[in-house]
Each structure stands twice: as structure tokens, then as C-alpha cells.
């Protein structure tokens, strides 16, 4: 697989013991459907998507708004449940998990970044990044240290005590990125991470995503509608329209 081509600069702190074999896919969906009831009409947001993503891949999901790409991402993040079909991540089907198991999946296996950053305004940057560790019941001292490391990694080491409102958009998204990776997830899911940013900041975020993908061996799945950025950073591009996959760039 592709990540082998890059020098293995894996930090000891972020080293993963559970290296999946390159044969088993990190993520695979089969005949995945998610329908919504909108009044009397049924919206087929995701309609029979079968997608396989290998360990350490950087995949971009492209499509116009309403194509179902964000819904697919929510299904992969365990925030939403499929109407039918399976979502298997690291060998486990999210559709069959209890709410409690799904919550554990969200805090241990998947990290999520949103277009709107979604930082909690009443908390400092450091506290925001510590939040997932609180739910994971990590000791206070370890929590502080790991949050600081994550923030240093995204270049916010000097802004720990600031509130999100005191940061620029780019900085906020980097803080959100730090929050997503602080629990050392195997899969990083990004929903339009550059949508609220100017092109310079957007590029910075994507550089970070690529760095995590390479050095931390995270599988990255990014939803975007900016084709140029996707082509520059992603290894593989999947196009969606009307809830279906219409083209798969395949591993380049």
C-alpha cells in the first residue's frame, strides 16, 4: 500500500500496536443505505454504497451538496445509523453496535473534524482538546500532557489558554484537528474541513491531514467539494451523486 512508500516517521507516542495487515481493509461498507423521511417523501441520502478503504489511505469524497457524502461520513463516524447495509471498521460492524459501543468507537477509533469547527465556546482550546480524553477516562495529568502535545503538533502550542472566539478560523480548525487526533484514532474523518476557510488556511489544514496520514498512519477520509485540493492531497478520489458512488479514482 501507498503509505509504505513514505519514510516511516512514526512517533513512539502515537505508535499503534494494532497494525492491521495490509490485506484487511480498514473500512468497508456494503450496500449501505440511509433513507430519511421528509414529510411523505423518502430521501435516499445514501443509496447502496459499497466502498472499501485500506489502512493508511487518504481518500477524498467529492460531490455536490445533497449528494450524500456528509451522510456517508456520519455513518462512518458512528453518529448516524444505516437504514440497511453494513459499515465495517477494523472488522466490526457499526450497524450492530449498541449505543454504548458506538460511543466507545467514537472516542477510541474515529476522530472527526467538521466544517464549522464545533469547538465549545465556553472552554479554552486546551479544555476543548481534553474533552475526548475526559470521556475516555484518562488521568488528569496525562490528559493535559496529551492535549498539549496534540496542540503543539498542529502549531497551537502557544494558544492553549485562549477561547475559540479569540482564534482565527484556521487556528480554530487546527484546534479541532488536535481534538480529533488526541485520542489517537485509527480513522480520521473530515467533513468539509476547508469549507469555512480561505485557500491559504485550507491548504494548511490539508497539509496537516496529509502529515497525520503519513506519520501517524491514520486512515483519512475527507468530504469536500473542492476538487483541486482533493487532487493535490488525496491518494484516491471517490465521486458521489444522488446517494450513489458514481466514480472511484482508485488508488493513484
Amino acid at each position, binding site marked *: 500500500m501507498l503509505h509504505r512508500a513514505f519514510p516511516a516517521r512514526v512517533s513512539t507516542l502515537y505508535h499503534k500496536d494494532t497494525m492491521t495487515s495490509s490485506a484487511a481493509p480498514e473500512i468497508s461498507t456494503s450496500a449501505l443505505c440511509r433513507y430519511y423521511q421528509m414529510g411523505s417523501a423518502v430521501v435516499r441520502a445514501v443509496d447502496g454504497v459499497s466502498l472499501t478503504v485500506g489502512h493508511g489511505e487518504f481518500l477524498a469524497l467529492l460531490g455536490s451538496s445533497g449528494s450524500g457524502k456528509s451522510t456517508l461520513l456520519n455513518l462512518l463516524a458512528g*453518529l448516524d445509523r444505516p437504514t440497511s447495509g453494513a459499515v465495517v471498521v477494523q472488522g466490526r460492524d457499526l450497524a450492530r453496535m449498541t449505543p454504548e459501543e458506538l*460511543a466507545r468507537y*467514537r*472516542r477510541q477509533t474515529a476522530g472527526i473534524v467538521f466544517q*464549522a469547527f464545533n469547538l465549545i465556546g*465556553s472552554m479554552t482550546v486546551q479544555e476543548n482538546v481534553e474533552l475526548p480524553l*475526559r*470521556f*475516555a477516562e484518562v488521568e488528569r495529568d496525562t490528559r493535559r500532557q496529551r492535549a498539549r502535545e496534540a496542540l503543539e503538533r498542529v502549531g497551537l502550542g502557544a494558544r492553549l489558554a485562549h477561547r475559540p472566539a479569540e482564534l482565527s478560523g484556521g487556528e480554530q480548525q487546527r484546534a479541532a484537528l488536535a481534538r480529533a487526533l488526541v485520542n489517537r484514532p485509527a480513522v480520521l474523518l473530515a467533513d468539509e474541513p476547508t469549507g469555512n476557510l480561505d485557500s491559504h488556511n485550507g491548504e494548511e489544514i490539508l497539509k496537516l491531514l496529509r502529515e497525520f496520514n503519513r506519520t501517524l498512519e491514520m486512515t483519512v477520509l475527507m468530504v469536500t467539494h473542492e476538487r483541486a485540493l482533493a487532487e493535490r492531497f488525496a491518494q484516491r478520489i471517490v465521486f458521489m451523486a444522488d446517494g450513489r458512488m458514481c466514480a472511484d479514482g482508485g488508488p493513484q
Partner: protein
Amino acid sequence: MKAQDVLDLAARNLRESLLRNSLTTLGIAVGVASLVAMLSLGIGLQTMASKRLMHSGLFDTVLVSSHRQFRGFGGGMRPQPTETRTLDEAARATIAKLPHVLEVYPEIRFATEVRYAGKPTFANVAGLPPSAAQNEAFEDAQGRFFSGPQAEEAILLADFAKELNPQVASLLGQEIVINYAERQPLSNAAEAGGFSLLRRERQLRVVGIVDREPYSGLRGMAGAGVFIPLQLAESLNVMQPGDLRGLTSAPEAKGRTFENLTVRVASPNDVEQVEDAVKKMDFGALSMLDATRNLQRFFAVLDLFLGIFGSLALAVASLGIINTLVMAILERRREIGIMKAVGASDGDVKRLFFTEAAAMGAVGGALGVLLGWILGRIINLGTNYYLRRQQLPAENLWLVPWWLVAGAIAFSVLVTLISGLYPAARAAKLDPVQALHYE
């Protein structure tokens, strides 16, 4: 999530909308305060009433007679000799050793001539047990109670004192002389149980004057104008009306016999036990037990009603909690969505809201108890000011026992937890996708 983190996040959230949460907490405080106020009023009234009644000597007294049963007055049925057990010093000592018995004393009353400043007057003299010092009659007495159980002192009834000297107060410290007939046992062994009567007189110092007769038993002290310490009265060996019958009907009795004895019990609750024990000894016993039972039932109902009215305010306050928490869910919809997205379980969210409700309940409860207590103090001051104006002794209508404090706080936490059930469940069930879509 760890308990410490739940507390930490809850405290942060409560601080975040400080005004609203403070107002909600204040609502709980007012509810708890009204509950505490109502219940303390009930407890205070009950305590006051039972204290008054205790001091009246009605409810903590058992009257023991030598007959197994008290006969009706009209039936003309005299107790048969076989139904009578002798009430003598030995029986008195046995009764005194029963549990919960404070003291056992005979009723000693005799007619006598009282001389003051050389003038003779007729009066009844009665012995008063030491416990009579707590009797309500002494609350507004002039002078003081006897200095000791054998003190050669007398307390006069104001009405009688007026006959001696219209300037009643000037009698305090003066000497009076009483005449009486002393019962002297015969020295001749063949005449055991018999006695002769000797004329005696005794000088007594007037130490107190009471407006009302100190009621010291079920039989009362009707008609007495002079009271002397009971032990002194006993040592005088005054001839009693019952002595003649004791002599003729109970020749086996050693020493003196009593027509009846008054038993003072530690608390009205112990009356039944003592009464039963006395009946087992084959004596007759009489008490106002049924009256105390009715009184307790009355206060139980009163407390219940006051409690219900107090709880209404707390119910209103709990609606305030539900409102505040439901509002908080709407306001923090996005935050809940974020927490879930980064790994919070439904249980974590539920615990967080629950903790916030409980914290408001605990703080509101403590504040409410304080508020209720202050309210009680103010009402106490007000009523006592009024009572003083009416020249009545001060009363504490308001009593806040520690169990009420603990109970009120526990109750308010319980009520807030129940109020938090619905909002917490609602927050936990929030769909994170919808919550994060909401902008």
C-alpha cells in the same frame, strides 16, 4: 466519564448561565424554606402544647389505688376486702423501682389552723413533690420554690394569702404557724397498728405565692391554701382520713398505708408501660393515656397538612428546575452534539444533566433551610413581642430540629433528581447529527 469530571463539567455549565441557574436555585430555596417553615411551626406548636400539658401533670401521671378497679361513683358498690391489696411503704418502694418512674408520692392533705401575726385562719395544707417546681403554676409565681425537700417553708395560694394580709407580697419571708394532729404509733406491742393522736404546731417561713394551684396529679389538690414540701409533710405524720380504714381493714400492713399514690413517669409515652406494670401488681391504675393518644393523632394530622402546603411550594420549584434544564438542552443542543461526536455516551450526558439538577437541589435545599430558619426567627421575635405586649410569657412557636434540616436538604435533592429525570433523558437521546446540523 469519571465522577470528578462530571462534577467539573456540571460546575462549568452551572457557572455558564449563572443568572438563570441562580434564579432556579432560589426557587428551590423558597420552596424548601416554606416546607421547613410549615413543619417547624407544626413541631413548635406540638412541643409547646406537650410542654404545657406535661407541666400540668396530667399526662405523665398514673394514679395507683389499693383497689384493682376504680368503681363507678353511683353504683354504691364498695370494694370487697378480697379485691383490695394494701398500698403500704413496701408497695410504694416496689412501684418506685419500676422503669421510667420518676417519683411515687402519696397525696397528703389535711385541714389545719394557720396562725399569722397572732390571728388564726382555717386552711387546707397540701404536700408538694419536688417535681412540682416545673409546674406551670410556678412560671409566674412570686418568690421561689422550696429550698429543699425538708425545708420548713410554705408556699401560699394568692387567694388565701389575701385573707392573711391584703398586701400579698409583704408576706414573703414572714413566719406562719400551722397546727395539726400527729399520728404516734402505740409503744405497746399488743396493740400493733394502733396509734394515738398528738397536737402539734410548726413554724414555717413563707417563700412563695402562686396565683393558681399547682396541679400535681389526677386527684388534684382542691381547696388547699398552704403548700409545704411533700417530704416535710410526710415526716409530720399527720393523721390522714384514710388511716382509720387502713387500721381496720389491713391489720397485717407494716407501717403506714395509703389510699392511693401518685406515680410520675418520665414521659407521656411511658405511661402505658407503667400503668400495665402497676396493674400486674394487683393495684388499680388510672391515667389520661387515651387523651394523650388523641392529642398525638391531632398533631400528626396537623403536621401532615402543614407538610402538604409546604410541599406545594417545592412542587412549583421543581417545575422551575424542569423548565431550566429543558431550556438548557435547547441552548446546549450543539454542545451535546459535540460531546457525543467526540465520544460521550448517552450515560455521560445523562449523568451530567443529573448532576447539574442535583447540585441546584443541594444548594437550593441548604439555602432554603437557612431561609426557613431566618423566617422562623423573625416570626418568633414577632410573636414574642406581641405576647409581651399582652403580658404573656414568651413562647418559641418555631422549632427547627436537626433531622428537619437534614431531611429538607435530602428531600430537595430527591425532588430535583426526579425533576431532572426527564430533561436528562431527553438530552441523552439527542441525535448528534441533528444537533450538529442546527445552526
